[in-house]
């Protein structure tokens, strides 16, 4: 078990302090109206939270993010296991996977929002679609570490497919799933956020875009801070989960 690492914690705190100092310095040098200082931004953030204004947009973005994330994780894990088990499936989906790695995200966002309309479902499917290949390749590669020896053992004890998936593959995949989940959540959060900047009419991203449109950088940065904090909290939660659930 990891004891509390003081030097690591100090280094992490130090870096945040340095960033804040740089920010404050930049604000003072440039012009307070153009780039507001950290304390102003955090003040606005505080107002947003205390007045309750922060929560509706937060809920909207978070809701779509989680739904899309879940969709992507399920599809991606399914793909990863299937691709690891079946050569044919892997070959069939190879080009599709390659294409997904190189498709510009912005174009996907426009495609979905304009052609399929600005509904929650569109964003959820979009997020799921973007997350799936990332999770899929990760899980597929993780399955590659699944020892042939264990497969042989399962053969000799005549273990059926369902038991293999629930008793062997899924437990084996818990650590890589948690790791993939962290990456997937970050990605899902970003894509949902981006779709709000580029057209979807509510959520945190939309607030940021509005801040830019009315040239209220302070407001923009306050909403951005909220975006970052949620990400931070999610990361920490997943790190904790990783530590708790992986007993082996």
């Amino acid at each position: 078990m990891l004891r509390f690492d003081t030097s690591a914690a100090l280094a992490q705190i130090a870096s945040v302090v340095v960033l804040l100092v740089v920010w404050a310095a930049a604000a003072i040098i440039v012009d307070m109206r153009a780039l507001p200082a950290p304390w102003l931004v955090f003040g606005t953030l505080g107002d947003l939270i205390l007045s309750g204004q922060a929560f509706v947009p937060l809920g909207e973005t978070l809701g779509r993010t989680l739904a899309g994330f879940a969709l992507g994780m399920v599809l991606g894990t399914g793909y990863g296991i299937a691709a690891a088990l079946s050569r044919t499936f892997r070959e069939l989906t190879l080009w599709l996977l390659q294409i997904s790695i190189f498709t510009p995200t912005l174009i996907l966002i426009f495609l979905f929002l304009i052609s399929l309309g600005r509904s929650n479902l569109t964003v959820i499917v979009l997020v799921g679609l973007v997350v799936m290949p990332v999770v899929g390749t990760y899980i597929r590669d993780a399955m590659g570490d699944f020892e042939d020896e264990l497969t042989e053992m399962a053969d000799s004890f005549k273990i059926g497919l369902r038991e293999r998936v629930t008793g062997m593959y899924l437990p084996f995949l818990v650590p890589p799933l948690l790791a993939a989940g962290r990456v997937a959540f970050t990605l899902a959060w970003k894509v949902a956020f981006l779709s709000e900047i580029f057209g979807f009419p509510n959520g945190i991203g939309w607030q940021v875009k509005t801040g830019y449109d009315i040239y209220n950088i302070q407001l923009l940065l306050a909403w951005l801070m909220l975006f970052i904090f949620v990400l931070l909290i999610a990361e920490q939660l997943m790190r904790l989960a990783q530590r708790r659930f992986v007993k082996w």
Partner: protein
Amino acid sequence: MIPKVSLDNIDLSFPDASRPDGRKVIYEDFSLQIEKGSFTVLLGPSGCGKSTLLNIINGLLKPNNARGIVIDGTDLRSEPDLSRQMAYVFQGPRLLRWKTLAENAEFGLRGLGVQPREKWRDLIDKYFRAVGLGDAQHLYPHQVSGGMRQRASIVRAWVNEPQILLMDEPFSHLDEITAAEMRRILTNLWTSEEERRTIVFVTHDISEAAQLATDIIMLTPAPSRICLRRKVDLPWPRRMDSDEVIAVEKELRHAFAERAGIGF
């Protein structure tokens, strides 16, 4: 008496580009009988196909040709489910690290499906106690020693109360002290049962063969032939330093040098 296992005229070869005829022959017109209730040791150097023989017996590997793969009088090929009457113990423990030792045993029970579910708990408990892991059965593999893990893998096989146990060099990765302990536990377990199970045990260790076997079959390197069959009629427990066991060993070493195709 009907032998427990009878392999009749087996041919097995693999494609091998490095050879002139493109194939490496492991077995050609090979036959083998294993008696019911015996502890038959297949002895031979690595690479002579001893492990593949085990896989032919349990049906996971199909030979190119075979006149018969007969278990207890019935050909395996006409009754594939006969393979559920056999349990395998590997060289490494091959335990699932996210399951406790007991859960690993249950995993095997579920797969082979020859024991009724109501009996599982009792079977698991009985056999873990028999090998000295009564309390440790609820631990995870990483919490126990290598020897204990291998014991657990033996229990996983044994809880199915199989007719035939196929054991593939199960102690070759253990240190000498742990291995000696394991042999003692294995023979104790085997001799404690009224109706002894048929064990087919593969090893390259001559001393181990002398300590464990009722029947020894020595194989040459591929293409494999039987170069020696010997019954070992010594009682258990056997001491590896007793005169009788050492005499058997000496005979085996002599045969090894002469017939197993090793140049000295």
